[in-house]
């Protein structure tokens, strides 16, 4: 029973707090502070251990063991790393723009952490605040992170840092577009911008938007990875070309702040992808087994675990892709962003709009019953769901077809075009070229 008592903590704490403060203070100051403290602490700890996980997983994928010496199985490695970074010299390069150099890491971390305020980790008390423009807020604030990278690169007074910053800003701006457009498809089914509302729309429909929006999910995921500057899109910090990219000149704690920002941004993107496409904290049968039987706190905690498991799987995908795919060339990256992702996102919007229109049009006049209710998202009946899923699958093929039509002249990712390109420009067409035979100079004795 002690476990149940622990799970029932919020109401117990609530009554305790009400003895000392007024109800308004408790609701609008104390509780949010507790939630913020918890989320920031847990995320910071998670970020520290994400570095450990990344090192471990990359080691396993290369048949190594990874960190093993600090603590059992190297579990204390993140703490040792943190202490080492804290004790390092805070180096400022000569002629650097000191103030901007100081401020840039903080902007990066703040931009990454603020987004966590609107992410619905679970129902009821597991979400800090439910803003009714949640998706817009996420997109707006997370793109402030680009500013931090530009400032860091610019103020460092280093060519590598500047080049890295230029690359990352170009990359993030171009992928931001398709990311924002990919979300719209999911929002058409959710009919709200609130992230909790999106999850509730999926929960009341008992369906994940991944089924309606396979193309949208893929675009969002690829753009998210590119947005976070993670491999295979880690051009801004391509080790072999740019030393360390925008944070080349940073050391000690400021460097670790950039690292924290990167990993928090990863957490944010996985959380938003989970919320929009994988049903957030919704999982079949959880509601029926817990909330319906009166165990409210159990319901919240189980939903929280479900959410974290889904986000964790996506995070594993990040590490997985990093050690599977080689880095893109810069022109390939831009090609992928503007010639493939952006048209795909636009096609996705059009097809989704057609799907929603068709579902709405079929509802009344033909006697078919496709829409159940509009209270939480687009509540569809079974036939409506089938139509939506069919449109999603057709969209996959349609997008591939239209993309190959658009890009039939594009060189990258197009073997047919590349075949015609492997040829000297001067040579006449159709004539089989012969390699010029090198004549041995006769002057040689």
């Amino acid at each position, binding site marked *: 029973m002690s476990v149940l008592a622990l799970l029932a903590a919020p109401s117990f704490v609530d009554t305790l707090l009400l003895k000392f403060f007024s109800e308004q203070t408790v609701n609008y100051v104390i509780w949010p502070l507790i939630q913020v403290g918890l989320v920031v602490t847990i995320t910071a700890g998670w970020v520290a251990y994400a570095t450990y996980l990344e090192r471990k997983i990359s080691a396993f994928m290369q*048949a190594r063991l990874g960190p093993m010496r600090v603590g059992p199985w190297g579990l204390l490695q993140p703490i040792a790393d943190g202490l080492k970074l804290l004790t390092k010299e805070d180096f400022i390069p000569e002629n650097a723009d000191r103030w901007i150099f100081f401020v840039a890491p903080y902007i990066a971390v703040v931009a990454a952490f603020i987004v966590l305020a609107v992410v619905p980790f679970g129902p009821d008390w597991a979400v800090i605040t439910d803003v009714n423009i949640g998706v817009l807020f996420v997109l707006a604030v997370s793109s402030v992170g680009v500013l931090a990278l530009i400032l860091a690169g610019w103020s460092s007074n280093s060519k590598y840092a500047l080049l890295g910053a230029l690359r990352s800003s170009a990359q993030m701006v171009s992928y931001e577009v398709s990311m924002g457009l990919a979300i719209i498809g999911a929002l058409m089914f959710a009919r709200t911008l609130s992230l909790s509302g999106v999850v509730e729309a999926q929960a009341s429909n008992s369906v994940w938007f991944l089924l309606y929006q396979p193309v949208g999910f893929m675009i969002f995921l690829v753009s998210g990875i590119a947005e976070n500057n993670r491999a295979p899109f880690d051009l801004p910090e391509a080790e072999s070309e740019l030393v360390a990219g925008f944070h080349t000149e940073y050391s000690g704690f400021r460097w670790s702040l950039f690292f924290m920002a990167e990993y928090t941004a990863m957490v944010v993107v996985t959380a938003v992808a989970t919320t929009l496409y994988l049903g957030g904290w919704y999982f079949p049968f959880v509601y029926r087994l817990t909330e319906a039987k009166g165990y409210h706190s159990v319901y919240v905690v189980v939903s929280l675990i479900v959410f974290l498991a889904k986000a964790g799987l996506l995070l594993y995908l990040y590490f*997985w892709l990093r*050690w599977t795919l080689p880095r893109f060339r810069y022109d390939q990256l831009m090609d992928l962003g503007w010639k493939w992702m952006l048209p795909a996102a636009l096609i996705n919007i059009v097809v989704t709009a057609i799907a929603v229109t068709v579902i709405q049009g079929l509802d009344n006049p033909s006697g078919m019953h496709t829409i159940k209710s509009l209270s939480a998202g687009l509540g569809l009946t079974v036939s409506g769901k089938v139509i939506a899923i069919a449109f999603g699958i057709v969209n996959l093929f349609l997008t591939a077809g239209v993309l190959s039509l658009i890009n039939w002249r594009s060189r990258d990712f197009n*073997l*047919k075009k590349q*075949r015609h390109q492997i*040829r000297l420009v001067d040579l006449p067409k159709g004539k089989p070229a012969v*390699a010029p035979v090198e004549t041995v100079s006769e002057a040689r004795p």
Partner: protein
Amino acid sequence: MPLVPVPKPTFTQKLKRFFMVDLLKGMAVTLGFNIGALTDKDSVAGKGIYTEQYPKVRPDVAPRFHGAPRLNMDPETHDTLCIACNLCALACPEDCIDVIPMDVEVVVAGKPRRKKVLDEFIFDTSRCMFCALCQEACPTYCLELTQDFELATYSRAGFVWNREMLEQGRETVKYES
């Protein structure tokens, strides 16, 4: 420059491209290694951990491995087995062995005789290439290349082993966890 013959993709290849089969294959490889690292114990044939935890776990060197040299002694009398015949020094292609003999007076069958015994044995491990030709030349199985591989020292002079080091082994700080 000749045209590079790039064959036209067949329908199967196009289908593979569409469903990103190659990407999935690559991801299957990395996932296989990740799962193998957690479950598979056979590191050579399987997908388990290949690396060794060196100072903690001593590696198993191959049976033919040649390492630090050693001068063997008679296990009962603890006298050296070396008869100062100089065959090892002659066999050494790198010329890194110096056998320094001395004469001692012994009485054999009532008559005083002079006998050549080992005084000092110099083995330069910095020049040694561990071919073990000296070991093969030794008629008394005295000189032997053991499987000990920790030969690093702080100076060049440390690489030159004398008779005491060869007989007793060099003192090294062993890792204790």
